[in-house]
């Protein structure tokens, strides 16, 4: 593990390595962030540093994220696993800027996301992020093809290239035959593949997937994971997935285990998929007493 010490601000020290970044100070200007996140061969696609988030219920405060740091590189397929209450969903919501956080830093391809106006954030979500949700979030009144085009529609223009892109994605994910069907007329797997295609229509920098296989049977889950793999290989997509499913996570390059609001461990997929799934299951056992 290579550690680099670098001067950041007067009196602060930055520790960089290939797995995570410890940031001592959170008061960086954007230019500093770009410099900080720069590494050999380019910059991180997603960079999260010392993220703190807590919820207040009455007079009590619950700290959900206690200084989470991680990064995802371009073209990587990374999963986050962890038991209930470990902060997985909160982390995803912070990354997609749905909820504010107390401290820490999140950058997407070098761009700091905090401090953006609401309309600017909407633009980031629309153009730079792609979302895949557990309950698909397809619009019932739109056909499969129209649902795929939805981010383009929200963007304000559906060009001929956009339509061609939608048709290409329909073919890529094997849902071309159901292009004119409504969500109520297709299976759960087909819905989620439609959602994956929708997430890719704007060629986003990062796809955020929240339990994408949570509502699916094993066969449909496999089809959705295949879609992610296809997106990664054919489109060089970067995917950040929150999941409970060790089978789905075993297809990833890396799996970050969250526990009690901190990064408990990071596992890299260096062998075969079944071996990696075995490692994940062992890790789950190691977190004894936890119900992952």
């Amino acid at each position, binding site marked *: 593990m290579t550690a680099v010490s670098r001067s950041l601000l007067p009196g602060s020290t930055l520790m960089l390595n290939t797995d995570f970044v410890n940031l001592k100070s959170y008061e960086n200007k954007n230019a500093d962030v770009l410099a900080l996140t720069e590494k050999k061969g380019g910059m991180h696609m997603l960079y999260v540093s010392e993220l703190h988030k807590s919820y207040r219920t009455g007079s009590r405060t619950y700290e959900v994220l206690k200084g989470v740091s991680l990064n995802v590189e371009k073209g990587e397929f990374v999963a986050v696993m962890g038991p209930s209450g470990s902060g997985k969903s909160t982390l995803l919501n912070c990354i997609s800027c*749905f909820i504010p956080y107390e401290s820490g830093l999140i950058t997407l391809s070098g761009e700091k996301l905090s401090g953006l106006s*609401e309309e600017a954030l909407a633009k980031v979500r629309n153009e730079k992020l792609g979302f895949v949700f557990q309950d698909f979030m397809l619009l019932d009144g739109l056909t499969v093809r129209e649902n795929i085009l939805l981010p383009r529609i929200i963007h304000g223009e559906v060009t001929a290239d956009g339509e061609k892109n939608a048709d290409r994605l329909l073919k890529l994910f094997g849902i071309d035959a159901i292009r004119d069907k409504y969500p109520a007329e297709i299976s759960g797997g087909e819905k989620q593949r439609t959602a994956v295609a929708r997430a890719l229509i704007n060629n986003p920098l990062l796809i955020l997937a929240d339990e994408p296989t949570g509502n699916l049977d094993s066969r449909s889950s496999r089809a959705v994971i295949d879609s992610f793999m296809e997106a990664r290989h054919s489109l060089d997509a970067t995917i950040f997935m929150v999941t409970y499913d060790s089978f789905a996570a075993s297809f990833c390059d890396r799996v970050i285990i969250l526990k009690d609001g901190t990064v408990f461990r990071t596992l890299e997929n260096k062998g075969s998929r079944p071996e990696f799934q075995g490692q994940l299951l062992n890790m789950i056992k190691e977190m004894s007493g936890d119900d992952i």
Partner: protein
Amino acid sequence: MALGAGKRSLAGQLFRELFTAMAVPALSGIVLGPLFTLGIWQIFRLFLPDKEGTVLSFTPFSLIICAGFLGASLLLCFLFAIRFISRTNILDVVNEQRKSEPIRDVRSWYLPAGIFLIVFGAAAGYGHPWFFKAVFGIFSPVWANLLYLSILPGIYLIILFLVILGKRSRKHPYRKIIPRSMMKFQGRQTVNNMLIMTLLTARACFAMFYIPLLASGNFFATNAWEKDFSMRLRADQDMPDREEIEQLAEEYRLTVENWAEAPMIVLGEDGTGEDIDENGKYVYQYHEVISDCIAISASGYEALTGEHLDLSPGTYDECISQDSAYGPDTGTTLITNMVTGAALDVTYGTFHYSHTLSGFTVLNDEDFARISEGLDDSWKETFVQFDADDADSPYGPEDEYRFSQALRERLVAASSGAGMDSSYYSRAAKTYCDVHGEIYWADNEPASSVHFSREDADSFQFWSLWKYKPYFRVMEQNNFFMNMAILFLTFLFMAVICYTAALIISYTRSITVALSNRQVYEDLIHLGAGNEFRFRSVRQQLSKIYSLPTILGMTAITLFFLMILFANDGRISLSEGVGMGVCMVIMLILGAIIFLFYRRTLKTVCRMLDIRTSRV
């Protein structure tokens, strides 16, 4: 129920909530209704000349009607509640909650088909009596009125088309696809609501249109009268002469001017009667005397109008009003002296426009003298018309109004017997039937509707139908609102209730749309939809809910009225045109109220969906 609650406890809770939800608004309505009525009445009184003599009264019977309505509504609600509770299968209840009613397969032909059904329904519904008469020679059957019903599916198809399909821009085919898709998935309930809102709007306009159309008709008609005062004075009754009328005018500081009078006679005229036999078939029968013919001589016509007529013997001219929906009577061939039985063959010459002489027949002087021979005074009258100058009166029109009241009372007091007949009771036809042993049709009518007494003198019916009703411009104009008060109040109530109902349905439907789509709007935020995009989407949906029924309802009823007005006499007269113009202004005002309501609803919905915008 899914968590184990018993049906009995749920039923009790449901019934209590239903009772509260129904009874509280109903009881509030019963209490506030009379106050609301009083408010409208106070506004109405501003237009009444006789504020003291016209009072609004409440009857306890109205409370019985309200209680009956409340009871029936509660009964229906409870029946539906019992039916709902009696469902034993919990899955049915759950599925009922989840049931969505998507509308699919809306075709492009829905719009033309909808327009066709509306046009067909309106034309067939209104024109079926003519069709059955012309083609089959029968009286139109009652069921033919059901042809109007095709308007409903017509409006439904148009709403479906405009809500779901609409006009897609070729350049931006996806521009409104999201709000349209949401409305599509709101299901048939939205379209059903919009259909009801369209009908309520149309019904409200239908009620409102009567007032300006009648008012403009009255205004134009009375202003077109050639003289301020005109009346028929029977020769057999103690009617006031010129001297008495001038003296009466002086009492009110008025000067009688432009006095003109001419002798008139009442004859019998022939014609073909139209009747319906027991099979509903039209039967036509010629009668030597079918109705009264009120005749004046050419010189009498000249005395009244200043216009000289050269009528050849055996020729008659007709006087008609310019606003008359009917043309001149050209079919008379025989006129009869009902005392001597002497008859005169006549042919139609031409017609002359005159509002005060409308319906009178003008005869050559020699013919008039010859056919008058032997008539007793009961068939003779004098037609009098004059103006009143109020230059010397400090009260002007008020004195003129009081004079007209006094003169009217004098005329009523002098009238009796045949002088109190209804305008559609023909003494000539009655006499002819008596002589020939036939039964005159009007004798089968209730006597109170064809023969009035002095006690009826203040009734609306008497003033509308009295054969010898004098035409006093100042009285006609001032009494118009009072005479029509009940009619206007009814129409006003109908309009207010219909519009209020339409607004309430619009509001609740808009809120339902917002609540149903709350999740979709949250999903759209994930997909990058900003405030502006979501605001546009909400606005497009709500504007359709408000604007479509308003535009459709108002357009449909405007076209329907124009059709009726045109079908009456093949033209739109000036007074009708002005009346419709006033209706347009009313529609603009109502449209503005609806727009304000829409803006308010839009603001509420944006707040509910957490859409932050400065545009509402």
